C-alpha cells in the first residue's frame, strides 16, 4: 500500500469525506424510517448534521482536568477507530490491504465499545456505570460468536487478509459466518432488542448520560461511524463479486449498506428491549451455534463437500 492510497482511504473514501456524511445519512435514515413506521413525521435529512453543529457550539461543562481529558479523549478515540476501521474495508477490487489487516479491523471495531465502557465509568454517573457494566458484559457475550465467525472466515480463506476473504468463493462457511456477524450487528450498534447498555428511559442513555456539547457530538459521530463500518463490513464480506470499476463498487456498497440500515431499523422498531440474560442467552445459544458450525465447516471442508 502506497502512502497516497493510505491517505486516500483514510481521508476521502471510505474515510473521513465519505464516512461522515454517510454516518449522518444513516443516522437520519434510521430515525426517519423508525418515525414513519410509528406513524410520526420524523426529522428532515439534514437533522443529524444540525444536531452535530448545535452540540459543537454548546458550552463545555467544567470538570476536574483529568476527567475532561478522559471525557473528550474517549469519544475522539472512538471516532478515529471508526475511521481507521473503515479505511481497512476492501470495498473495491483494486484495494490490496496487508497481511493481518483482519485482526486490526476487528480490534478497531471493538474500540468504540471499549471506550464507551471506560466513558461510563469515567463519567462517575450511576447511570453511566450501570450502562458501562452492561456494555462490558454484552461485549463478552457477542464477541464470542463474532470472533468465532471471523476465525472461521479466516481459516476457510487461509488468510488474515480482508481482500483474500472477500475474494474467496462463496460457500456454507462464508454464508454462516456472515449471518453470525449480521446477528451481532444490533448488539454492536446498541439498538433494539439489544439496546441494553444505553437503555433509554431506563438508565437515561447509559455510558453517554453525563456527556454534553462537543463530547456528545463526538459520541454521536462515533456511533454513526459504527453504523457505516459495521454495515460496510457485512456488505464487504457478504458480497462475493466486485464489478471491477471503482464507481460500480462504490454504488453497490453504499446502496447495500443503506438497505442493511433499513432492515436493522425494522428489527429495532418491531422489537422491545430484552433483559441482559436473554440477550446473553441468545448470543451464546444461536450466535455461538451458528458460528461453531461455520468454524467446523471451515476446518473440515470435506464435511461441506460431503453434504453437497
Amino acid at each position, binding site marked *: 500500500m502506497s502512502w497516497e492510497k493510505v491517505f486516500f482511504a483514510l481521508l476521502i473514501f471510505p474515510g473521513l469525506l465519505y464516512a461522515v456524511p454517510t454516518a449522518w445519512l444513516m443516522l437520519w435514515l434510521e430515525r426517519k424510517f423508525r*418515525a*414513519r*413506521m*410509528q*406513524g*410520526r*413525521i*420524523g426529522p428532515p435529512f439534514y437533522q443529524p448534521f444540525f444536531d452535530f453543529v448545535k452540540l459543537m457550539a454548546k458550552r463545555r461543562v467544567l470538570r476536574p482536568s483529568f476527567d475532561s481529558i478522559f471525557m473528550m479523549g474517549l469519544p475522539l478515540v472512538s471516532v478515529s477507530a471508526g475511521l481507521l476501521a473503515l479505511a481497512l474495508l476492501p470495498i473495491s477490487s483494486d484495494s490490496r490491504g496487508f497481511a493481518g489487516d483482519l485482526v486490526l479491523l476487528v480490534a478497531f471495531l471493538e474500540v468504540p465499545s471499549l471506550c464507551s465502557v471506560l466513558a461510563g465509568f469515567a463519567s462517575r454517573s450511576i447511570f453511566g456505570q450501570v450502562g458501562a457494566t452492561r456494555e462490558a458484559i454484552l461485549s463478552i457475550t457477542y464477541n464470542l460468536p463474532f470472533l468465532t465467525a471471523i476465525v472461521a472466515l479466516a481459516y476457510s480463506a487461509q488468510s488474515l487478509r480482508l481482500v483474500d476473504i472477500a475474494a474467496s468463493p462463496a460457500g456454507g462457511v462464508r454464508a454462516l459466518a456472515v449471518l453470525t456477524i449480521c446477528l451481532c450487528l444490533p448488539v454492536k450498534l446498541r439498538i433494539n432488542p439489544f439496546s441494553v447498555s444505553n437503555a433509554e428511559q431506563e438508565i437515561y442513555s447509559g455510558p453517554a448520560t453525563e456527556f454534553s456539547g462537543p463530547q456528545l457530538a463526538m459520541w454521536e459521530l462515533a456511533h454513526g461511524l459504527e453504523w457505516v463500518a459495521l454495515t460496510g463490513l457485512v456488505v464487504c464480506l457478504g458480497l462475493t463479486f466486485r464489478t471491477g470499476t471503482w464507481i460500480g463498487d462504490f454504488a453497490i456498497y453504499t446502496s447495500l449498506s443503506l438497505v442493511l440500515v433499513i432492515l436493522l431499523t*425494522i428489527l429495532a*422498531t*418491531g*422489537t422491545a428491549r430484552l433483559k441482559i440474560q436473554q440477550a446473553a442467552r441468545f448470543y451464546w445459544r444461536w450466535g455461538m451455534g451458528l458460528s461453531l458450525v461455520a468454524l467446523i465447516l471451515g476446518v473440515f471442508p470435506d464435511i461441506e463437500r460431503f453434504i453437497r
Partner: protein
Amino acid sequence: MNIFSVLLKNLRMGPATLRFPEEVPYPKGFHGPVKIHTEKCICCGMCAYVCVSGAVRVAEHKDNCEWVYSPGLCTFCGKCVSVCPVEALHMAAKSAPSYFNTKALDEVHLVPYSPCPECGRPTPPVREVLRAKAFKGVAPNVLVKSLICQRCRQKDSQRALVSIQVKGEPPPSRSDK
C-alpha cells in the same frame, strides 16, 4: 409477527402527526374557558360565590353589574356553569390560549340593569326563564311585581302589611283565579 404488519400499515398510511394549524378535535363537553351571555345574566353572583379559585367576580354598580373572569386563575371545573340559575354561562369547546401574563386573557362584561316598572330606577334584570321557574302558578297581578326593584318591593310589602293589619282588608291572594 403481528407487530410487523402494524409497522407496515403505519408506513403505508403515512404520519399521523398534525401540522400546526390543524388540531385534534376537542371532545364533546370539553371544559374550556367560561363564556357568558350577558343578556341572560341576572347578576345573582352565584358563580362568584361557588368559584373556589376566585376566577369569577361579580361587582354591582349603580346601573349595571360587572362580570369579571380571569381564565388564568380558572381551573375549568365547571362549577359556576352548573350553579347559574338562568344558564347564562357555558364553557368554550376549545382550551384557552397560553400567555405569559395571567391577566392577559381577563374579560370584563357589563350586564346593564333594566328600569324598575314602578319607580324607573335601574334594577338587576329579571329574565323570563327565572320568572317561569320561580313564580310558577302565581297570579298575573302578583307576577308583575317580580320585575320591580328591591325598594319598591319592600314598599309594596309594607303597604300590604298596613292594609291587612291596620285597615283589616284581606291580603292580595296568591292564587287569585
